[in-house]
């Protein structure tokens, strides 16, 4: 279980996240929703050790990890897919995937994981694609490669930061389908999204972040019925 308790984060003198708490249990698909500037990415970066927390705790199976550096957090099984393009552009698709093999188990399972990953993302699985430089892939393919790469490490928890951002609608459908299938395999996923409509359809639970504070939480169906969500996020 990944637990975040009363997390506060900021930049310089500006506090962005105010005592945010949430949890991601085994096998769950949980979303953090919110508009631009709500603090979603900041929250994830603090969980991953990319920003130092000002206060609060991050617990992985009860053990505190908020003092650890990013590579140590990754080695504990947290895989993070950032919102910006984070492929290594001058390495091939295959080299990008292989870089994620950071544990003995991931190395052993390489062939099998790769088959599963290619099954999820057939667009990047051809032999010619694998030898292509990652920087020459389209935006959507790069996004898929980053998720595929995260899966290669056999993560205990998968944290996705706005995977649908900037994708063509048809690709967004494919992507959410892939997220559902990853979830069905039992990988717990923490999904940060602005696409509230689609997200609420696939998640178990969701939290709504506004101005750095969690203002609502509930199951996907509960939240989609709430008037505030319908007015502010779904436009109904």
């Amino acid at each position, binding site marked *: 279980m990944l637990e975040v308790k009363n997390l506060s984060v900021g930049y310089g003198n500006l506090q962005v996240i105010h005592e945010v708490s949430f949890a991601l249990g085994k096998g769950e698909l949980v979303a953090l929703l919110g508009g631009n500037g709500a603090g979603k990415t900041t929250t994830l970066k603090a969980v991953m050790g990319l920003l130092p927390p000002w206060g609060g705790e991050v617990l992985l199976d009860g053990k505190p990890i908020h003092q650890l550096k990013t*590579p140590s957090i990754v080695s504990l099984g947290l895989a993070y897919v950032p919102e910006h393009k*984070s492929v290594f552009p001058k390495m091939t698709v295959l080299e990008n995937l*292989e870089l994620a093999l950071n544990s003995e188990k991931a190395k052993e399972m390489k062939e099998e994981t790769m088959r599963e990953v290619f099954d999820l993302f057939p667009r990047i699985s051809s032999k010619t694609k694998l030898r292509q430089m990652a920087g020459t892939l389209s935006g959507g393919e790069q996004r898929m490669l980053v998720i595929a790469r995260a899966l290669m490490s056999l993560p205990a928890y998968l944290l996705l930061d706005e995977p649908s951002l900037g994708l063509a609608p048809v690709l967004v459908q494919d992507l959410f389908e892939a997220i559902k299938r990853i979830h069905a395999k039992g990988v717990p996923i923490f999904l940060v999204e602005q696409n509230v409509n689609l997200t609420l359809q696939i998640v178990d639970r969701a939290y709504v972040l506004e101005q750095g504070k969690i203002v609502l939480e509930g199951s996907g169906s509960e939240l989609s019925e709430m008037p505030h969500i319908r007015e502010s996020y779904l436009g109904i």
Partner: protein
Amino acid sequence: MDYSTLAVQLFLTGIFLSSLYILVTFGLTMIFGVMEIVNFAHASFAILGGYACLLAVTSMGMDPFVALVPVVAFMALIGWLTFEFFARYTLDVGDAHVVHYYALLLIISNILALIFGLDYKFVPSGLGYSQIEIGPFKYPLLKFIVAIISLATVAGLSLYLKKSVIGKKIRAVSQSKESAEIMGIDSLKIRRITWIIGVSSAGLMGALVGLVNPFSPYAGTTYLIVAFSVAILGGMGSLFGTIVAGFIIGMTESLFSLFLPSQISPVVAFVFIIGVLMVKPEGLFSRA
């Protein structure tokens, strides 16, 4: 001397110069790519390698080419020490690091001057004026061996970066430190390895140069200028660019040695810097 002999001579000299230029720039550009540090002290590490080789040969009676092995090991130790006690504290200071590395250049050069004095020294190779015969052509054996060792080192390093796990991690950090860290790559460890490789390769280059040309504690700046020209021409941080640019500058310098007295041959490098900055300021093969 007929024209074909002359052409081959110029070609071989070009290869010789290029091989050293590429070797010295390789470390500089690797450190720049991975650590975002412009290492002015690179030249002084080269000179330190020259003195280390001199000591191994004259005081310990080693064969100069065998001595290259302990020299590289010694330089790796120097690399580790300078990383732990110096370089790691300069990683996040931004452009101010340039001052720190200029200071390091002065510190190392001055320590060498205190120990060895200002006289020019060279490492006796024992090969004298032996020539190697390649078909109908002759070339100094010493320069030939030096070029082979330099090129083999560059080839080995390139292969290491291309194929090995650590090499791939080094390339990953040079492309994006944050993306590398979220892949679980310890960027501090990778930067330490990069720094040690850079310092060792500079030391090796200095030892090789010491076999061919005399050197003094402050002689490194000449090679620093060449290394910067090669790095700028190739596009700072691009290793492939370094190799291409090293050959361009080395070959051109060799060709111009026909018309120019050797003292002003570095002018070639300057002309290249000016030309590149005017036409393609990001270099031939820029990283970005």
